[in-house]
């Protein structure tokens, strides 16, 4: 069972000697196992993206350790794939070639990688769209391409920074179902950054609330709504359960506690 572990992680932007720059993240402890679906919520500026960039290996912590199965993380790696908020697709490549990016970089021959890319496109509901250009797709479709690109790398961990942030509510609901299905099918450990409390609660096996200045974890709670949805329960019924509503209020007040204190 793979484990992505952040222990006592602190991060500070800017020069280390600049004492007056406050840390963006401080004393973060977080474990992500395969099969986990962990969502991180928090106000804008609380350090969510920074946390994901640390886990992805784009940034190194000033203090603390980031490890995968005990090995220190020193940069991006094949066992972690990232879905970006702005989709970060390459408009100079067709949809199928975007999905096949990781395979191309790994030297898989074009025929093989396109076959695999088409399978992933079918999995995200974009069957037969591989030859299209990126700009011919809607926002929701582009994000699916980004997710297919990440999954095509067959990662152990799927790191997603507000992938649904720019989508309308109906498209988001469709994407929730898709994400849960793909998560179960891939057995990956998922880390989802979101600013939607309901999304976090509905999808995740655990929700982490970050509070800003400095970014730290103020609440870490486990849930099971996503699994229940996958087992066939009705999403609207789940979301109107008293337990769901109470949990949403708890998370909201954790997010806003310091504003009201």
């Amino acid at each position, binding site marked *: 069972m793979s484990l992505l572990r952040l222990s006592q992680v602190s991060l500070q932007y800017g020069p280390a000697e600049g004492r007056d720059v406050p840390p963006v993240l401080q004393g973060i402890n977080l474990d992500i196992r395969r099969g986990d679906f962990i969502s991180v919520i928090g106000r804008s500026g609380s350090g969510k993206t920074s946390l994901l960039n640390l886990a992805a290996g784009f940034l190194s912590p000033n203090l603390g350790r980031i490890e995968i199965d005990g090995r220190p993380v020193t940069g991006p790696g*094949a066992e972690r794939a990232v879905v970006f908020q702005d989709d970060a697709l390459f408009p100079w490549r067709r949809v199928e070639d975007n999905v096949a990016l990781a395979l191309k970089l790994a030297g898989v021959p074009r025929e093989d990688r396109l076959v695999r890319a088409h399978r992933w496109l079918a999995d995200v509901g974009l069957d037969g769209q591989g030859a299209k250009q990126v700009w011919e797709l809607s926002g929701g479709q582009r994000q699916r391409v980004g997710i297919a690109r990440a999954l095509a790398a067959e990662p152990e961990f799927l790191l997603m920074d507000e992938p649904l942030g720019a989508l309308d509510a109906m*498209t988001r609901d469709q994407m929730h179902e898709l994400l849960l299905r793909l998560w179960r099918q891939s057995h990956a450990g998922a880390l989802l950054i979101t600013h939607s409390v309901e999304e976090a609660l509905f999808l995740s096996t655990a929700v982490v609330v970050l509070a800003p200045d400095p970014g730290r974890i103020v609440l870490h709670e486990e849930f099971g709504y996503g699994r229940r949805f996958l087992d066939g329960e009705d999403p609207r019924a789940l979301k109107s359960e008293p337990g769901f509503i109470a949990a949403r209020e708890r998370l909201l007040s954790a997010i806003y506690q310091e504003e009201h204190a």
Partner: protein
Amino acid sequence: MTDQTLQIPPAAPRRQMPWTSLLGVATILGVVALWSLAAGLGWASPVFLPAPGRVWAALMRAATDGYANATLLQHVGASLWRVMAALGCTMALGVPIGLLIATSRVGRGILDPLIEFIRPLPPLAYLPLIIIWCGIGEPSKILVIGLAMLAPIVISTVSGVRAASESQIRAARAFGATRGQLVREVMLPAALPSIFTGMRIALGAGWTTLVAAELVAATRGLGYMIQSAAQFLVTDMVIAGILVISALATVSEFALRAIERRYLPWIGRA
């Protein structure tokens, strides 16, 4: 699960508005009319300003009988070859230089001052030096034209690389790109639109430099044809040569635009 929401319609093809084109055509016709009038009324002697008809006749004469040792087609061929050879060499050199400046501190440290040194120099200033170094053959001519093209290509490549977004670069890194793959897969494609703009500026600089390059011991070429005509005050032939250069520059500009539309269709819609 197909969603038709947020379907982005493809942008309208970038085309000049009709009335702008009309205005352009009208302007050219107006200038020609004014020119005919001036020549017809004898405002200036034909040596200074031959009538459009005489320029046309000179053009036909050059095309059929030839002028200054060669037919018009041969002059055009020689000039076109020099400009295109210079463009090819400069692209082969300038794009890698731009990528090095944009992606490596050492590269920037070494190459940036050199480019900044060449950039403001007028080609006529270094032409004599190039002749001393490389002689008066074809290579010198191509070198002068190429040098005039180098800075626009390099600078447009450098600024083009910045068009790659941080998340695109991170995506490539996250999916295992090496440094070389990062440049090939992200930075170079992202820079292409800017490089094309640079090519257009470079071609402009190339046509500008052509006549100067052909000042020296050329036996073919539009610049040579113009200078030969100028020595004998054959003004109609001088103007004919100028018009041919202008036409070639326009055609190459449109060709580049067509290539851009064909091969870089994502420009402006990423």
